[in-house]
């Protein structure tokens, strides 16, 4: 049980790590975007004429690209984590019914911890998924 479960948990952990890093990157890029493309700054750039507007757009593009890329990476990682969670969940349920699991309190404790982890991760990822499906508008 140990090796298989460790493999599952490591895979889930890797996807969650990627999701965490990507979400951090998205939040940072979004903060930059909010500062760069505030209503006042868009208005000012429009008032200043075509050259200022072109400059504004050229400095905005890399920020939007980073937001898009981070969101796409987070979305993919969340989907992979959810898929691995489902596989691990099925594995845990199958182990729980085996004789060996019933007679080993330690294994039962581990199964309990894993089930709580799966429930918590499943809820968080499911709540997050619709947010990540939002497409960033491009003009």
């Amino acid at each position, binding site marked *: 049980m140990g090796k298989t479960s460790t493999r599952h948990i490591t895979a889930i952990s890797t996807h*969650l790590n990627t999701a*965490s890093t990507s979400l951090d990157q998205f939040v940072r890029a979004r903060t930059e975007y909010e500062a760069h493309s505030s*209503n006042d700054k868009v208005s000012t750039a429009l008032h200043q004429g075509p050259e200022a507007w072109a400059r504004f757009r050229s400095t905005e593009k890399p920020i939007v690209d980073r937001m898009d890329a981070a969101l796409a990476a987070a979305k993919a990682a969340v989907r992979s984590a959810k898929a691995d969670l489902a596989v691990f969940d099925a594995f845990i349920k199958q182990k729980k019914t085996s004789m060996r699991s019933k007679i080993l309190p330690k294994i039962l404790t*581990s199964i309990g911890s894993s089930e709580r*982890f799966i429930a918590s*991760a499943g809820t968080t990822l499911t709540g997050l998924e619709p*947010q990540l499906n939002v*497409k960033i508008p491009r003009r």
Partner: protein
Amino acid sequence: MAELTNDQKKILKEYEDAMKVIKGIKVDPKKIAELVKGAKQLEPGWKEDPD
């Protein structure tokens, strides 16, 4: 400052709408970080049990 043309006003409105969508994405990286930590904590327990 001169008033914006209708086309420019339209652009400004599109920016406002886009900002609403972008701000509307509610993500909490801390929650995911907690899950990463939770997964790490599970690993040693499982390793102690043989397959």
